[in-house]
Every structure is written in structure tokens, then in C-alpha cells.
């Protein structure tokens, strides 16, 4: 083994540079989003932008700590970390402070911590650990069951915390499984699950189940008639039937799942779907999407210029420093700014995939894909929401949105991978 001279040795500067660029740009945009003349210093810690500076400082310290810790720590203890994370997720339901209907925050004075944000990291590590194990074959039913359990167990707990939006992020791990050899059907399955969820909210459920049943019977008949091997056909029929039952449960379960969602979140999704009963609520939530579109749309090609935004700065856009921070980019920097920021994000994700592929260790590679998938899912849902292409689900834009928990969670997620990569020549598994 070679001895490491500094913690910065073998660090991937592309990822690190993109990270720093996004964090600083995020900070500037928070400054613009909530700017006010009385506190015009970006370092004023009574304001969100001053606080974000502290969060960023903390994030850099965390990044350094992650780089200092021996890489073996991350490969050795994923399961204990997974268990601790899960306990925290459960504990927060009982001991967490209730904030707008959800029990997902621990509060220590001014400082808040959301275990769900860190849960993604634990699941990423645990999944990597399990999937990189010896004699693990994607085709095995047991492998599938355990992999899905690792992913869905914490997601289920998070749903119970009434943070359905955050739970949805775990669907992102399907990309990891796909890369590791799970059938492409799972990817399609994930896609259809989302489609079915949206349809179930949109169309009459009984009609939907009847249509699904007819399709299933048609496919079953086709299998039965066209197949010579009746034993195989029987299994096929069983599969189709199983899918039908699961789909039906999913369809009827949607209501239950969504009724557990935060009140405002439920409305937001219904608004996106154009299906809203309560007119007053529709006005409120539709207003958010509309204001977001107005802010971004009014930016034009080159934007209104730094601090010149009116829609975000003057509170037309809701939650303009957190979930809707992309509006500030759109309004003040225009199409060119949006293109630049999305390019940085895509560059980071592609770089992570590239780096993941060069790992000799399966663990590092699988973990890397986890990081890329989670970042991708967050960006898709968050940006998609602001431009009216995704339901309004309150999840942050990585590195950009105001707030410590999410920034630190993404920092840990990314830097653990950077650390693993810097040791790629040393680690075999």
C-alpha cells in the first residue's frame, strides 16, 4: 500500500469544482431571492443568505472530515449506519417536532435536522454493500427481494412521517438496480408505477382496475393460446395475475398514501393533475405553479440581471429560497442562465457516472450510481415542478436550495463518493 501524502491526493477535481460552483451559485441566488435593502450584505447572518454562508462553511468542513476519514470506514459499516438511520427515521415520528403536519424534523434550538435527508445516504451505502457482495446474482429472487427491501423499508417509514415527496426519491435507486443487471422491466415498472399513480389520481379507480383487468385477461389468453408449453404458460398466467392484483392494490392504495401526505402537498399534486375539488385550495396551489412560471418566463433570453428580479424578490413566488430557488435563476439569468445551471448539474451527474464506471470496486461503482440517481431525481422533480412539468412536490434542488440538512446530506453523499474514488487503486471491493 502506498502512503497517502495529503487528503487531497487523487481527489477528482472536476466533481469538487462543480460542487463548489453550484454551492456558490446557489448562495448568490438565495441572496437575490430574499434580498432586502436594509440588510444588503451577503454575509449578514440575520438573513437567509448569511445563514446559508454558515451552512456552506459547515458543508466544506464536513467535506474535509469525510476526506480525512479512512475510506474503509464507509465500506465496513454500511449496515450499522443503515440501522442507525432507520432507527432515527422511526424515532422522529415519535420525538420529532411537528412542522406543517409532518413529523420529520429533530429540533435542537435553532438547528433543525431531517433524518430523511440522510437516509438516502445510508440506503445508498447499504445497497452498495449488499449488491457488491459475493455470489449476488441479479436474477435471483432473493437478491431482488432483499434489494427492494433495503430501498423500500425506509421509504415506507418516511411516508409515515408524512413526507411522501421525500419518500418518492427512493424510486431513483431503480437506476442503480438496472445498472447492476436487474431486468429493464423494473425500469419500465418504475416508469409505469409513476404513470399508474398519476392515472389513479386522475381517472375513476374502478374504471382503471376494469381496464387493467381486461388488459391482463387479454394478455393471459394470448399466452395460453400461443404457448405450447402449458406449464410455462401457467407460470406466465400466474405472473400476469399477480401484476393485476398488485396494480389494483396500488390503485386503491394511492388514496391512502396521499391521504397521509401533508395537506398542502396533496393539493399541489391534485393541482398539477388539473383535478381539484376545493376551489379555494386550487386557487392557492395553482397560484404557486403559475407564479413560478411567470417568474421564469419573464426572465426571457438573458434575464433581468442580478438582483433585478421582481417576482421572486417581492414574494410573488412562494418558498423562493428553498423549493422554488430555480425561479430566481430563471428570472434573473434567463434562458442562458438556466441552460448554464442545468449543464453544470448534468456535467456533475455524467462525471459521477464516468467516475463510477472506472472503479475497480463494485461497491464504489454501485454507490456512485446511487449518488448520480438521487441527484438526478431531485433535479428532475424540483426543476420540473418550477416549469410545470412535474407535480409540486416539495423537495430541494441539490446544493442550491436554502437549508442546512439538505446541503449537508448532499455534501456527505457526494464526498463519500469522491473519497472512495480517491482510494480506487487501493480498494478492491
Amino acid at each position, binding site marked *: 500500500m502506498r502512503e497517502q501524502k495529503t487528503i487531497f491526493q487523487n481527489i477528482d477535481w472536476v466533481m469538487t469544482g462543480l460542487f463548489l460552483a453550484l454551492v456558490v451559485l446557489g448562495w448568490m441566488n438565495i441572496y437575490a431571492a430574499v434580498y432586502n435593502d436594509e440588510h444588503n450584505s451577503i454575509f449578514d447572518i440575520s438573513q437567509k443568505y448569511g445563514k446559508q454562508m454558515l451552512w456552506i462553511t459547515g458543508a466544506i468542513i464536513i467535506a474535509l472530515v469525510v476526506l480525512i476519514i479512512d475510506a474503509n470506514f464507509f465500506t465496513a459499516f454500511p449496515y450499522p449506519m443503515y440501522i442507525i438511520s432507520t432507527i432515527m427515521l422511526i424515532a422522529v415520528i415519535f420525538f420529532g417536532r411537528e412542522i406543517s403536519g409532518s413529523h420529520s424534523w429533530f429540533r435542537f434550538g435553532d438547528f433543525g435536522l431531517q433524518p430523511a435527508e440522510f437516509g438516502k445516504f445510508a440506503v445508498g451505502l447499504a445497497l452498495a454493500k449488499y449488491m457488491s457482495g459475493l455470489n*449476488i446474482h*441479479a436474477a435471483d429472487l432473493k437478491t431482488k427481494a432483499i434489494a427492494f427491501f433495503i430501498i423500500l423499508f425506509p421509504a415506507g417509514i418516511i411516508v409515515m412521517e408524512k413526507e411522501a415527496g421525500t419518500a418518492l426519491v427512493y424510486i431513483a435507486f431503480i*437506476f442503480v438496480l*438496472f*445498472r*447492476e*443487471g436487474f431486468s*429493464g422491466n423494473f*425500469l419500465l415498472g418504475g416508469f409505469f408505477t409513476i404513470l399508474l399513480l398519476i392515472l389513479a389520481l386522475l381517472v375513476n379507480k374502478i374504471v382503471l382496475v376494469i381496464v387493467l383487468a381486461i388488459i391482463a385477461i387479454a394478455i393471459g389468453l394470448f399466452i395460453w393460446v400461443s404457448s405450447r408449453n402449458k406449464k410455462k404458460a401457467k407460470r406466465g398466467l400466474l405472473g400476469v395475475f399477480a401484476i393485476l392484483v398488485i396494480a389494483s392494490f396500488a390503485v386503491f392504495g394511492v388514496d391512502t398514501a396521499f391521504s397521509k401526505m401533508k395537506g398542502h402537498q396533496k393539493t399541489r399534486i391534485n393541482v398539477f393533475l388539473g383535478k381539484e375539488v376545493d376551489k379555494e385550495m386550487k386557487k392557492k396551489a395553482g397560484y404557486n405553479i403559475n407564479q413560478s*412560471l*411567470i*417568474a*421564469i*418566463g*419573464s*426572465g*426571457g*433570453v438573458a434575464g433581468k440581471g442580478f438582483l*433585478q428580479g*421582481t*417576482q421572486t*424578490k*417581492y*414574494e*410573488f413566488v412562494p418558498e423562493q429560497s428553498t423549493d422554488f430557488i430555480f425561479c430566481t435563476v*430563471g428570472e434573473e439569468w*434567463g*434562458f442562458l442562465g*438556466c*441552460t448554464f445551471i*442545468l449543464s453544470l*448539474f*448534468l456535467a456533475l*451527474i*455524467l462525471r459521477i*457516472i464516468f467516475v463510477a*464506471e472506472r472503479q475497480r470496486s*463494485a461497491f464504489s*461503482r454501485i454507490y456512485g*450510481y446511487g449518488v*448520480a440517481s438521487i441527484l*438526478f431525481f431531485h433535479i*428532475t422533480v424540483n*426543476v*420540473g415542478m418550477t*416549469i*410545470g*412539468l412535474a407535480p409540486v412536490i416539495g423537495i430541494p434542488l441539490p446544493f442550491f436550495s436554502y437549508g442546512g440538512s439538505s446541503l449537508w446530506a448532499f455534501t456527505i453523499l457526494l464526498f463519500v463518493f469522491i473519497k472512495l474514488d480517491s482510494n480506487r487503486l487501493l480498494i478492491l471491493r
Partner: protein
Amino acid sequence: MSAQYSDRKYVIIAIFSSIILIFLARLFYIQVIDDQYKLTARNQAFRYMTDYPARGNIFDRKGRRLVYNQAAYDLMVIPRQVKDFDTAEFCTIIGIDKDQFEKKMLKAILPPNSSRKPSIFEKEISVEHSAILQERLYKFQGFFLQPRTLRKYPEPIAGHLLGYVGEVSEKITDTSSYYRDGDYIGISGMEKAYEIPLRGIKGTHIEVVDVHNRPMGSYMNGIYDTIAVAGKDLVCSLDAVLQEYGEKLMQNKIGSIVAIDPSTGEILAFVSSPGYDPNLLIGSTLPKNFRLLQQDSLKPLFNRALMASYPPGSTFKLVMSLVGQNEKVISKSTTFFCAGGYNYGGARPLKCDAHHGSLDLTAGISRSCNTYFCNVFRSVMDNKKYKKMEDVFTVWRNYAISFGIGAHLNTDIPNELRGSLPTIERYNKIFGEHRWHTSTIISLAIGQGELGITPLQNANVVCIIANKGFYYIPHTVKSIGKNPNDPSLLRFKEKHYAQVTDTAYYNVVIEAMNEVVKHGTAAASQIPGIDYCAKTGTAENKRVINGKVIQLKDHSMFIAFAPKENPKIAIAVTVENAGWGASWAAPIASLMIEKYLTDSVSRPEIEKKMLDADIIHTNIIGKQKGY
């Protein structure tokens, strides 16, 4: 395992990249192609605040104030900003009850108003109320007072001429880029004619507001703001004292007085009676009062000086004398014999009031002999110089037009009536082509028949005679701002010549008119120390009632200019249903002349008689008069 599925990275990269591309396409659409969001953003965050400049004042020719601005306040409300408050106290202050309060509040919220935008809660709060309100406004969040200006008239005179100001109609806001809903605009009179210099130019400043509608300062330090330009004051040609005197003389009478300075064309007095107090047509009281005035059977809104048409009668005889001389078919010494009427072969001869006997031109004019002028007319029309009736008629007609009869004078007062001057086509239609002759249209000779002239045109003919051949377009404005040579006023400095320009011809007419005052029908209206020229007249007043033509009491008419040498005032007075011109119109005109030239009145008993006379209520429908 890694190598086995390594190709799958391309699938994942493709999915990730295509999602980002879809986002970019969507962003390109909403940011670059679709403009609706930019517009909405402006509407939401920008308040285009209008700065209304003060409207120009109007002064009379001697600097006396005719119109000025009075401060008033509108109580505005932004419903969204209203917090709980003591509605009872609030209602008491502005003097409304709870029901009205709720109605007004609802009106401010419902479209086209909006709870986010300011709208008028109560118009024109009185000065006392606004002072009380201002003190307690801190208790009523969401309400504020917006200053605005109302027109105010120190003397209740010249309503018809000054016109009034009111809210713009939808028709104007639809077609004009300047006016917005709720803006004020001159609707009639000088306020309309001089709207552009009077109003000035509105300014705008863009104020950025936040989502709670709180002002956040000006946009980009005001680089897109425009500064309001104040309206210009007008110096009106009216003499306020003369105008007020004229209106007093005409009280309880129907009719008009138009007085013009012939040497400039400036209108000195412009009375239409009955008139109205211009202070009635102000601000929020305007619609109600306007309706009341409209329903008045005496039509006080009707500007008789400008829009009523009367047979020109005697005035036209003067014009015919000039035309006859100019056509060289008569001269000063031409004599005709009057046996009490002119028989043109029709059913009824045109009668004279007396057997005038043998008359020369001067006597014909001063005694207003119908027979004499029928002969003058025939001499003109039967002139061998012209081959066809149509040719000579056209010549005659052009003379009339050159005297401003039957044509717009293009004065600066809006809605000027043209009057009537018959055309060849009209006679062809009535009598058939080539089937009308001098005798068919003989009543034109004495200014009757198809002729109609407005009091303004009548006074203008007097100006032509006073000036011996030309006139300036009668107008009401001496200067705009301090500039008497404003481009829009230059047209009033041009001389317009009548087709008769030989001063000798005019001298004959002037001498005859002087004779009217010295020894004729206006002898009773002589003014001590002022030698002037005049002509009395009556206009027949026929009206069709229940399908029958009924002769009503004649209109009393009088024209004059004074003094005879170097005239300073030309005047036309019409008193409807008052009978002989000498009895009412002449004394009124003479009082006006004296007042203007000497600033005093030396004949108090005549003045008193004129002031006290109530012709409306005693003579509204005069006794029938038949031939």
C-alpha cells in the same frame, strides 16, 4: 457483473440527458417564445402610476379668472390591505350607512376592480371631510386619499363657451392611446377645442410593488419614468364683465348675443339664453345635473349663438345691396317704387309694412323695404351677362358664401352649425330642372325662404361691413400660455375677403345703417356720445303644430357695429318670440355696446326695463299672426 452490464450506462446516460434536454426545450418555450409570462410579470409587480398635471386655467381678455382648479380628494381603497376597523366610525365620517359601505366594498373587489389594486371607494370627498379623514386614516388601513382637481368657475358665466370637463367615454379610451379609463377630458366648448394645450401631458412613473402590494420604490431608478407637463393657461377673448352683463340682460328671454371685435375677430361676448351655471357640470355631480338640464323644456344646454338657425332677413338685405352694387346692376341712386308690396305673379305678393313710395338705396336699406330688395334681387338675377339661371344663381350663391353665409366659419368653438344656403340641386328637386326662375325664389331677396343663418354668422356679416370687405375668423382664444402666436392661432390672423371689396359700396350701406340709428327704427336705442350703425330685423317664426303651419310671434333681431368710425364692436342680438327688433333686441344691443365702449350705462331706465322683462313666461307662444 460490472463488465457484463457495462453497456447499460448508455441507457442511463441517455435517459438523464434527454430529461435535461426536455427541460431546456420547455424553458426555451416559456422564456423565449411565449410572451404571456413577461406581460403578467409586469402587470403583477409594476404599478404604472400616473401623474396628472394641473389643467390650464382660463382667463378673460383682461386677465380675470374664468376657470381654475379646485382641490378635492378621492377616497381610495385596496381591499386586500384592509384590516379590521371600526366601520361605524368610518361610515359616520364619510356620511354613508352600513349597507352603502358593504356595496362600495363589494364594488371595489369585484371585476373589473380587484382586491389587489386601488379603486375609488368614494369620489370627491369634501374638504372638511377629507381633513377629518386624513387625521384618522391611520386607523383605516388599506384606505388612502388621492388628490385630484375639479374645475371651478368663480362667476357662473359663459358655460356654453367654456364647455365642461368629464370622464372619457369608452369610445375614446378604445381609440386613443393617451386616455385611460377614469381620465378627464374636455367634452364641449373651449375645454374640448383646446383640450391638448389645457390638459398638458400626463407623466408616469413605474413603481415596483411586492406581493402584498407594498411599494418597493421606483423601477431602475426611474429611467423609464416620464415627467408630467403642466397644462397651459388660455387667455380667452371674452370680456367677462360684458359677458356677465349680456347674460343678465338676456335673463328670462330666449335668444343670444354674439359680440365680436371686428378688427381682430375676437369674440367679446357669447351669450345663449337660457344658459346654465357651469359649476353644475363638475365632477361627480355632472351626470345628474346634465340629465336635469337635458330634461329642461327651455333647452339650456342648446347653444343658440352657435347652433340655432334663423332667416337672415334684414342682414341679407345689406348683403344684397353690396352684391347689387358689385354686379353693377344698381347704384347708390337707383330708385324703385314701392306700392306696399312686390307682385311677382305668385299667389301672394311680398308685402311691405307701409307704402314706401319712391326709394333710393339708402332709403331702401334704412326703411327695410321688401319691394326695393325684390327689385334688387331681380336686377341681379336677370342680368343679361349670364346666359342661364343656374349660372347666375351660382354667382349669387358664391357671394353669399364669401360673406360666411351657409358655410362653416371654422371658428374654434366645436359643433358650429353651417346654416342653410339653397343649392341648384335643391331647387331642381323642389321645382324640377329648368323650372325655377327669379320669381320662384324671390323670397331669398329679403333673406327668407330657404336661407338660415346662425347668430355667429350674423355677427360675422356685421364684421365684414364694419371692416368694409373682410373678416377674421371669429375665435375665442387670444393666446395659449403666454404666446399669442401659437401655431394653432395663426389661422385667426388671416383676413378673409368677401367678394365685394370696393369700400364705396360699403360706405353706402354704412351710411344707411347710421341712418337707422339716427332717424330710423333704432332711433330709440341711440347711445349718447356714440355714433353707430345698425339694422333692426324680425325673423318670421312659423311652426307646424298639429299639421298646421302656425305663425308665431316673430323673433326680434338686431345687428350693429360701433363706433361708426374705426369700429370696436360688432354685435348680433336675437330675442325669440319678442316681436319687433326695435323693441327688445335693439335696446339690449345698445346697452352692450355702451357697456363695452364706455364701461358704464347712461340709460338706467332702459337697462331696468330690459333686465326686468320676462319674455319667456309672457310670450312663449305669441299670438297668431296671419296675412
